[in-house]
């Protein structure tokens, strides 16, 4: 049975999409988790819905609209967070809702039925077209290249922004670059799990690997592996059980995270971590 479904092109595409998504969300998700940008990323993904609505209304590819809206919202929030941190929380909430509202408005103004609307909201990895796979591959390669080039600088800025300034690193530019990568990753993941569930796929693999890694690099590698396990498992399970793929992927990731937390709690009780009792 396993071999027979592998013969379907859509199924191979789904696995490939899962792989590409896992690479980017493992790497970028690591930054999102260590730099505590989880809420901001949620805001970015929901703002993307405004772009999808605009795409339907204007008759262009909704994904292009999503790229525009998520980039604009990420950069806007980034600029404000660099200047006035205390308002960021409120701002994220506003952008989150405004993006959704714009999307709903445009879609209601668009005559006729919006065909893929449901898959943008909840994702469907089994329906990813080849053209989207190409876009995803290009995005993944771009993100990988930027992270390799800027690894040390990203590390300095995400670990200690103020000290990075003292080292004369252009903190503002680097922060906005990182946020652009987050926005692009979010768009990539929309196809897989949908706007509403993006945040979970972005953060759960990274949160799982954080518990076991002492270096950012290792955390990225383990997040990618976790992501591949979770998406591949989700694709198979959702196919055989005939349930939605996005939700299945997320629940597998959440289940793994739950087990990791339980394991950590048990281990801490028996063997306190070195240094944990100090200070």
């Amino acid at each position, binding site marked *: 049975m396993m071999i027979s479904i592998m013969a379907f092109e859509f199924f191979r595409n789904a696995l490939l999409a899962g792989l590409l998504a896992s690479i980017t969300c493992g790497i970028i998700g690591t930054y999102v988790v*260590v730099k505590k940008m989880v809420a901001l990323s949620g805001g970015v993904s929901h703002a993307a819905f405004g772009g999808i609505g605009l795409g339907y209304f204007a008759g262009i590819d909704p994904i292009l609209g999503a790229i525009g809206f998520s980039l604009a919202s990420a950069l806007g929030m980034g600029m404000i967070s660099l200047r006035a941190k205390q308002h960021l929380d409120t701002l994220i909430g506003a952008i989150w809702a405004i993006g959704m509202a714009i999307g709903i408005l445009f879609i209601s103004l668009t005559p006729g039925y919006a065909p893929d609307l449901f898959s943008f909201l909840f994702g469907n990895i089994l329906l990813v077209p080849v053209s989207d796979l190409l876009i995803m591959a290009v995005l993944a390669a771009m993100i990988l290249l930027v992270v390799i080039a800027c690894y040390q600088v990203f*590390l300095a800025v995400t*670990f*200690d922004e103020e*000290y990075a300034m003292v*080292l004369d690193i*252009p903190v503002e530019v680097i922060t906005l670059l990182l946020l652009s990568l987050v926005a692009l990753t979010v768009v990539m993941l929309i196809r897989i799990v949908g706007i509403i569930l993006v945040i979970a796929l972005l953060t759960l693999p990274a949160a799982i690997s954080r518990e076991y890694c*002492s270096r950012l690099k290792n955390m990225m590698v383990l997040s990618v592996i976790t992501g591949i396990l979770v998406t591949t498992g989700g694709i198979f399970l959702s196919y055989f059980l005939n349930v939605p793929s996005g939700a299945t992927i997320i629940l597998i990731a959440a289940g793994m995270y739950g087990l990791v937390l339980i394991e950590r709690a048990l281990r801490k009780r028996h063997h306190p971590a070195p*240094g944990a009792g*100090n200070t």
Partner: protein
Amino acid sequence: MTDAIALEHVYAEIAGQIVLEDISLDVHEREFYAIIGPNGGGKTTLIKLMLGLIQPKSGAVKVLGGTPGENRRKLGYVPQFHTFDFHYPITLQEMVLSGRLGNKARIFTRYTKEDRRITEEVLLTLGIADLSERVLSALSGGERQRAIIARALVSEPLILLLDEPTVYVDAPAEQQFYAILNSLKEKMAVVLVTHDIGVVSDYATKVACLNRRLYTHDSGEITEEMLTSAYQCPVELIAHGVPHRVLRKHDQDVP
């Protein structure tokens, strides 16, 4: 000879509130300048002015004869402990090496043998070389504190600025810590701000008190007048437990 740091009639504001008023001071080469003052007295703001992280409302800040922004790479900075996220997945060595980033290419950055040699040297001096592969979260408070200082030293600064560096250092380690700072004085100017007057021992070559305004005395000693003006409360309260030599006059009651 230009001063390491020179402030002239500097005023600074945070969120519309004046936090520093008419500050003038000179820090010379190879000087250990200690500034003490109560919490909220503007100590961190003063350090950030020297780093060029904030701009004065009026007055001039000069670092090695130029603006702080121009000469920032020649400064080492030890920020306050509580500003750190100690759960970040980074090893002690990675953190300290990052102090070398100031003069490196921004993309495809690679650390050289020289970077690693200097880092190793500093870690040895501070007695944390054997911990270099440890993750930050597995270090004790004192070890973390030394890691923060090591990061500032690997850039081989001409001036070292320390903001409350002894908060997490226990008493025996504290003496050792000041001995290290004292040896650094041979190579660089050291500016240290703290709220804990007990720590300003005989190592400081110059002492000032800061509470919105700066109260100085030409000698390396803290005088009663300086303390009274800075703390605006009877000196005896804060002088309690301070080594005798710190206060010049000890026999006169303060009303």
